[in-house]
Each structure stands twice: as C-alpha cells, then as structure tokens.
C-alpha cells in the first residue's frame, strides 16, 4: 500500500526540489576545484601543447611551424640522451618502492625508539631540495668528506668522483633524491600499516604465523593499494622531483650524464630562449610520464574493482 496519489506527488515534488538544491550545492562545492584545475592544469596544458607547434624566441609570438619542433626533437641526440637517462632513473623504481616499505615495517614493529626513527627518516623530506643538493655537492666532491672517510678506512678504491664521473653521476644523483624523499615513503606506508586491525595480528599469532608469513599474508595484501599509490607517485615524481637537485648539484653534467628531460626543457626554454622547442620536449615528457602512470592507475583501478567484488 503506497501513499494516496496527491500525497505521492507532493512528496515527489518535494524530493525533486531537494535533489535540485543538493545538486546545486554539490556543484558550488566542487566549482572552486574545477576552476582551479581548469585554470592551473588544463588550460596551461592545452596552451603548452599549442605552443609546441610554434618556433619562438623569448618574448616573441613566434610563427607556426607545424610538426617541425617534433621532427627536430626526434633527431636531437640531447633529447635522446635525456630520455635514456630518464629510462635509467625509472629502472631504480624498485628501490624507491621497497626500501621505504622495509623501513616502515621495521618501525611498525614498535621497537623501542620507533617514534624517534619515524621523525628521523622524515626529516630530510622537510629540507628544501636546493639545500640538500648544495650539501651533497660538497659531501660527494672528489676531495669531499665521503671520499676522505673512505680513504681513511682503507676503502680508497671506492673513492669515486661521485658527481663528476659520468659512469656514476646519475646514480649518485638518484641516491641523493631517494635520501630526500625516502621519509615521505616511510610515512605513507606507516599510514597504510596503521589501518590494519590488531585482531588480525593476534589471530595470526595464535595460528603460529611467523614474521614473514604475517608480512606476506596479512600486511602486503592489505597495503597493496598504498604501494600502488606510492609507486605511481614515485614514477611520475622520479622525473619531476629531480629538477632542483640537478640544478643545485650537476646542471645536467658532466656532459649530459645527468641531463633529464625536465632540465633540458628548462635550459632550452630559458637559457637558449627557444620557448617553442622547449615546450615540445615538455610535451614529450608529459606523454612519457602519462604512459607509465596510465598503466599503473589502470592496474590500481582493476585491482580495486576486483577487491570490491570479492
């Protein structure tokens, strides 16, 4: 038995009006976010892509060049080297994902002093990258304290020109950036670990599960979405976090050994005054990151959907 027809109509009209009001409020609430995204993300992106079809110098409007910048980029050895370097940096991703996880797991055991360690690992992240770069530039210098220490303890054969030798400079740079961002990863994982109910561990302990079993059967499966999130952040971040460190430590050198696409965009646009060409390299970097991120976001989406169904 439903309500009489006029009453139903009144209720329906009332709920319709409320729905419209709710929709309006919803729109108003998301409007600032949409405006900000449009103004600071979408419009600059479209403008950037548009600018990549122009040959322009500083301050000039430039002239339409069609695909000329893209064709030039394909034959530019500097661009190739920068993207090859970016590929090498991406290969270090497992270290970015696993090392903070390992440390987070150790801290999660709540061994004495864990709060101090949590703060200590996070501290480098709070230091401005340019400062970190300046400090490590001194530390890693051929005659710097690190090599001095290595020589004093009889490991002089390991005293390399960390930032000056093109065979190791890129990985030295990645090591410094990893040091700087490591704490963020640890804190991210700890946030994920904090959501695991204690009862699960108690039950596992009763069942006689050891440390490794608990890790691989309870912890990792539960924090898999956090790992996915951190992996995506690192993949895109690896290619855009590096700029201040390159700026402060190597300027892309020696030669082009630590030249990454974003730094190449900067010197092309702002040192060589070729705004259009610099933007073209920026668009290529955008596509490069997008490809990696798309795969990972899709994987997260699929695994999340699967989890919901289960």
């Amino acid at each position: 038995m439903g309500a009489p027809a006029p009453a139903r109509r009144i209720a329906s009209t009332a709920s319709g009006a409320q729905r419209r009001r709710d929709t309006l409020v919803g729109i108003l609430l998301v409007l600032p976010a949409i405006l900000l995204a449009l103004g600071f993300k979408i419009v600059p992106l479209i403008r950037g892509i548009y600018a990549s079809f122009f040959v322009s110098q500083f301050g000039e409007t430039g002239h339409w060049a069609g695909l000329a910048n893209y064709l030039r980029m394909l034959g530019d050895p500097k661009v190739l080297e920068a993207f090859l370097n970016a590929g090498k940096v991406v290969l270090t991703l497992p270290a970015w994902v696993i090392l903070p996880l390992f440390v987070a797991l150790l801290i999660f055991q709540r061994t004495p002093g864990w709060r101090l360690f949590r703060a200590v690992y996070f501290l480098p992240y709070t230091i401005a990258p340019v400062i970190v770069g300046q400090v490590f530039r001194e530390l890693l210098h051929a005659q710097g304290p690190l090599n001095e220490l290595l020589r004093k303890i009889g490991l002089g054969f390991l005293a390399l020109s960390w930032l000056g030798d093109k065979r190791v400079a890129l990985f030295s740079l990645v090591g410094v950036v990893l040091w700087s961002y490591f704490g963020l990863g640890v804190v991210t994982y700890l946030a994920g670990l904090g959501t695991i109910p204690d009862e699960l561990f108690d039950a596992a302990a009763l069942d006689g599960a050891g440390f490794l079993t608990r890790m691989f059967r309870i912890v990792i499966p539960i924090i898999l979405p956090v790992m996915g999130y951190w992996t995506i952040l690192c993949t895109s971040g690896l290619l855009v976090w590096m700029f201040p460190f390159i700026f402060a430590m190597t300027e892309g050198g020696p030669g082009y050994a630590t030249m990454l696409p974003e730094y190449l965009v900067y010197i092309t646009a702002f040192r060589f005054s070729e705004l259009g060409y610099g933007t073209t390299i920026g668009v290529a970097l955008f596509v490069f990151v997008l490809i990696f991120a798309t795969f990972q976001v899709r994987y997260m989406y699929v695994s999340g959907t699967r989890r919901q169904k289960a």
Partner: protein
Amino acid sequence: MATARSKTWVLAAVLLIALVASLTAGGQKEPGAVTIKLLGWQPGGAEAWNKVAGLFMERNPGIKIEMETVPMEGFYPKQGAYITGKSGPDIMGNNCGFETWERKDGYTDIRALKTPKAVGHLLDTTSNHLAYDKNKPAYGISFSYQGNVWYYNKKILRSAGLDPAKPPVAWQDFDRAAKAIKAAGKAPIATGVGHTIAYWIFPEVAKNYWQSEQQITDFAMGKVRWSDPPLAETLKSMARMSELGWFQEGAATINMQPDGFDFFLREEAAFTPSIISDAFHWKAAGDAIGHENVGAMLPPSINLNSPFARKFSGVPGSSWGITPWSKHPEQAWAFVTFFCSAELANLWLQMGGMQPNTTQFDASINAHAPAFLQIQEIIKNPMVHTGVLNSGREVDELSRGYQEVMQGQLSVDEWIKRLNRALDESPLKKPDNPIWK
C-alpha cells in the same frame, strides 16, 4: 537536517568569498611614490648597491628602488620567466654581446630614452648595440669595464723558487713553472668548469689563433665553424692544458663560481683565470690573501707572434636595460644612468672593486693593491672579447664538453661535432640573420 543544509550553504559561501578575495587581493601602494624594481645579481656587492640606491632615493624622494637580487646561477630562470610572461621588474641586468642580443625582447631600445650628457659616452661605447653596430638598437649600458686576467699568488710562486716579478709569459715557461709549483705541493691553476669556461678560458686560448679582426667578426656571424683551424686549435689547446696537469684534481667536477676561485683563495693553487670587475677579482683575492701577495697578468701565450696573443680581452661589464613592460621607463632610466654615471665611479671602485667604464676615476684609491695597478696597464691594449660572441648553446656545449674532455671521456673531435651542432642551432649566428644587415 535544516541546520546541516544551512551549514553547507555557509561553507559554500565562505569558500566562494575566499576564492574571490584571494584572486583580487593586491598590495598596498604608497600614494604618490613610483616604485622601480630591479632584477640583478649585484655585481660589486650588496653594500655598494644599497649605498647607491640610498643616494638615488635621497635625491629623488618620489622614486623608491626595490632590488630583487639572485645569484648569477639563478639569474636566468628568473629573467627568463619574466621575459616569457612579459611582466616583472623595470630594470634587468645582463652581460654584453650574445647574452643580451638573444634576450633582446626583454629590453627596450634605450636610444628612445632621454640620456643625460654625463653618461652619453656610455651609449657610444656600449657593446649592447645589436651586432655591435651603433646605428642599431641598444639594450642597456654598463657601469663597469670587464675582461680577463690571471691572478697569481706571489707566496706560492716564491715557495716554488719562481720570481713573482716575472710571471710566465709563454706556454713553455708556464709548463716549467707548473712543474715547480706541483713539486712544491700546490696546484698550478685553480679552476672549475661552468659557463665561465666560455668567457674566461676560451677567449684567452683562442686569441693565439685569430689572424685578423675580420676573422673575429666572421666568428660572431657564424661563418667560422668549430672545425675550422682557429677554433679547432683552440679546443685542442684547452684539452692540452688539462693533459699537462695544470688544473687541480677534480676541477672538472666543480664550478668556477665560487668553488674554483675559493680553491685559489685557500692558497692551494698558484694561478687562477678570472675577471677584473664584478666579483672574483683582484679585490676579492687581495682581501682574502693580502693585496701584497696578489699579482695580475695576461695568460701565458701559446703563440707570441699572434697579432692578438698579448692583448687584453675587454668588454663593457654587466649592462642594465629597461624592460618594455615597465610603466615608468623614464624613472627607471634615471636610476640606471645615475648608477652608471662617472660621479659614482670612485664609489663602485672603492666599495666593489669595479673597474669603471670611464676614465674619470681616481686610481690612487686602490694604490695599495699591486694587482689593481697591474690591471690598469694590462687594459691599455684591448681587443674584442670573443667569449661574449658565443651563443647560449655554444657556451653550454663548451662547458659540458670540457667537463668530459678533462676527464678523458670525450675526444676533441667529438667536442667539435657537438659545438658545430650548437652553432647550427644558434639562430643569431647566421650570416643572413637580419641583425647583421
């Protein structure tokens, strides 16, 4: 429910107001005062700049000077962002030659502005006229004269058994001196590899190979390729300097500014290639190790018979121009002409160690500094500074390539190829570019 909905509306309204307020917020302005903003790296030091700005504001109460100071290595990103956005300071600095011409759209043609007689001569001598042509637009004037010398530490020379009164003149002499200096436990030359390579080392080696002024002009126009004899020989000789072990260990992995020069100031090297104005000059060296211990000389020559080997590579120093977006170009120009005026030459000289871009100064102010007095003799025989005739891309390749060459990780032939490519990618270095017509 109703309360919750009201709260939602209030929250939405607050957010909207905050957004509108943040987008429309602006700074308070002093009524009646014109504020002139200047972007620069404060050549000569903050003390001198503050003094000059203070003097100007005293005389011009209606004008307020605000300086945005960034170190040289951070200058170009700032400047580039302003030029790209076509907004920002009223006055911006620059170095002369290609560095200015490549950024000419960030500067206005100062010939259209009213120039006081006191600095009129600067407009005639400035190298900021496009393509060095006085009939073409000029993008700024310089308050200092700049160029390259080598500084040396007399104490180290003495300890190596060398006579500080007779520093080496030829390469062979220098190589012998270098061996003695190394035997005394010091490095012969303190340096670092950044963009200073193109400005401080390249021109000093190249001048051994130029045959005529026309050839230098051709180099500026891009007619001389890096595989052509003057430039190819220059690169080979630069590589040879490293092979001979003249530089300190690890020189390829540091910048000249400040690390390389600091190495000299720590008295760990006998010589350093540097400049006469702005910074890293005779005053900086003398203040650190005692003026009586510092000497200045022309770099040793590979070919003493070359027409340019014993000349001084000189150029007007950092130059100051007015941005096209400035709303107060006349007031901005008034400040530029003030700090470039001969009236302040002695102040810049005394406080900043700047070599004035005028002859109207009192050299006796710095009579206590032998290096300064040596410089006054050296600059009497100038030539075009060929370092500033490199395009931005060439400057970059010279520096990157030299880093690798010094470590034996790049051949000179490969370096030449890279530089030829950089030349091809430099829009202004084309003989058919309108700036040369």
